[in-house]
């Protein structure tokens, strides 16, 4: 699929089709660049984000955290402008009445209790009915029982959740989250994903930075893909995913009869190439353009051939390789 054929993946110079209406909360980056000395962290990025959950995706070091910090006004762009609800950030602190942020860093004032930390945030956000809002925020992240404990005693997951509560205590219309699922256990992840989805469904602008593609697809409808500081693609998650799926991907299969299985996969047009893995006994590296179909059919095929499968995993499902597909596609 080429860029021209893609309806929902747009090249970086175009705004997304979800460009918000004037009355909706919005976050816009207009030709934004950021460099540190000779190092360019973000280069000429433009987009507009409206209500719903948008993922800021990119491999580590791609510039997505810098982008998120510029959106939140923590860092000023070297060139270009960032606006929140059509007001330029960093010019006025009033803008933060509508903004909440979950930063990536773990450090929170260790001497405060969770309740005191939320109270600090609520008071500084000029909240009325502070206690009720704190209680609501604690319940959102299931931290009510730990509210009177010092943050210094919290686990990583608890610190992550109290940061979320602090970002939401004043009921903001715009929420930035930097790797929000980091440190959460599986059950907490499920709850956090539900929470992020709910925030988007309530009409808030939620921008979530992540480097984990499989994680993002569970809550984001829209994605902005940042690669090497450039906006490589933007649009619906499904379109990006479909584009990724069209590229041949390498799968490692470890089984007790690799030659027999490999021959059948080629014969049945499930793979475009097959080779034995010299580093693994019973290892078979196959290249497939339809990985989903392969994963669906493989167990049945193995059973028919009486082949025992020990391991099946993607060799190039890392975000870096996935992004390289997308980057190539939009060039």
């Amino acid at each position, binding site marked *: 699929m080429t860029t021209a054929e893609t309806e929902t993946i747009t090249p970086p110079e175009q705004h997304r089709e979800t460009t918000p209406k004037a009355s909706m909360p919005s976050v816009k980056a207009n030709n934004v660049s950021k460099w540190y000395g000779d190092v360019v962290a973000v280069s000429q990025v433009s987009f507009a984000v409206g209500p719903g959950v948008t993922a800021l995706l990119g491999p580590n070091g791609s510039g997505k955290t810098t982008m998120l910090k510029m959106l939140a006004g*923590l860092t000023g762009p070297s060139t270009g402008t960032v606006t929140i609800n059509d007001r330029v950030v960093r010019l006025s602190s009033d803008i933060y009445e509508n903004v909440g942020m979950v*930063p990536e*860093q773990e450090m929170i*004032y260790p*001497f405060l209790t969770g309740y005191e930390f939320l109270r600090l945030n609520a008071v500084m956000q*000029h909240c009325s009915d502070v206690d009720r809002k704190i209680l609501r925020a604690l319940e959102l992240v299931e931290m009510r029982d730990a509210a009177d404990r010092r943050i210094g005693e919290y686990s990583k997951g608890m610190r992550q959740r109290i940061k979320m509560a602090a970002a939401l205590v004043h009921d903001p219309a715009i929420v930035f989250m930097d790797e929000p699922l980091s440190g959460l256990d599986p059950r907490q992840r499920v709850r956090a994903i539900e929470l992020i989805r709910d925030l988007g469904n309530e009409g808030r602008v939620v921008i979530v930075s992540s480097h984990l593609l499989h994680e993002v697809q569970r809550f984001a409808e829209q994605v902005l893909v940042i690669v090497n500081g450039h906006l490589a693609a933007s649009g619906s998650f499904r379109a990006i995913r479909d584009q990724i799926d069209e590229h041949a991907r390498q799968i490692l299969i470890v089984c007790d009869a690799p030659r027999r299985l490999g021959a059948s996969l080629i014969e049945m047009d499930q793979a475009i190439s097959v080779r034995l893995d010299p580093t693994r006994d019973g290892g078979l590296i196959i290249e497939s353009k339809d990985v989903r179909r392969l994963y669906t059919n493989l167990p049945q095929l193995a059973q028919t051939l009486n082949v025992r499968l020990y391991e099946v995993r993607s060799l190039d499902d890392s975000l870096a390789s996935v992004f390289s597909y997308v980057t190539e596609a939009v060039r």
Partner: protein
Amino acid sequence: MSVDRIPVFWLTARQFLEGRSIRVVALLAAVPLLLGIIEIIAVGTDLQVRNMLGQGFQDLTIPTLLPLIALILASSALGNEISDRTLLYLALKPWSRIRIVLEKYAATISIGILIAIVLVFAAWALLGGVSSNFDGELLLAMMISIVLAIGAYAAAFTLLSLLITRVLMAGLLYVLIWESLLAQFIPGLRLLSIQHYVTSVYANVLADGSVAGSQLSSSGASVIVLITASGVFIILTWLRLQQMDLD
């Protein structure tokens, strides 16, 4: 005033009171008291409070102890929050940066002045009680000097903490080399020293000629210089914080 009206002040005061730096500050502020106890043990009750405590205040407390107290507190008020990145929890609020700076500064000088005044007062009361000589003029001079010195030094070091990362080292060099050495012995530099103006106020309040009078500025001019300098440092701190990237 409700804690909710000054949350950054409250937060900063909690940071100080729960941290290790407060113990170092208390130890520094207790030096005059410790010296007083040693003096009592060595000399007995026949001691001159103004000679002992007053001279020590002029030679040690003003040039070294008060700047160090201010340095330890001011360097952690904003500087530590920048280095551990907790400052962004305050920066992402509809709270003006000047208000953040002012509340941080107010907490710094409140804690510093409170500790210094309590322990210097304890030294004065101990020596006065032992010698039956409660020198009210000396007490007033010391209290005013503590307020002015910590106020000016804290403003300077708060600004410094936003300009460089190794603020404690730089501040120590400033205190020990500039304030305690160069400004003491090189006449031209004296006018660029906070210590000079604090000493001038101290000497003028004492008004007994015990401090070399010819090199002093007037009390009024000294107070104006110290307050103006503090104000300028605070404004520069605010401007710097406005421009800073909180990475």
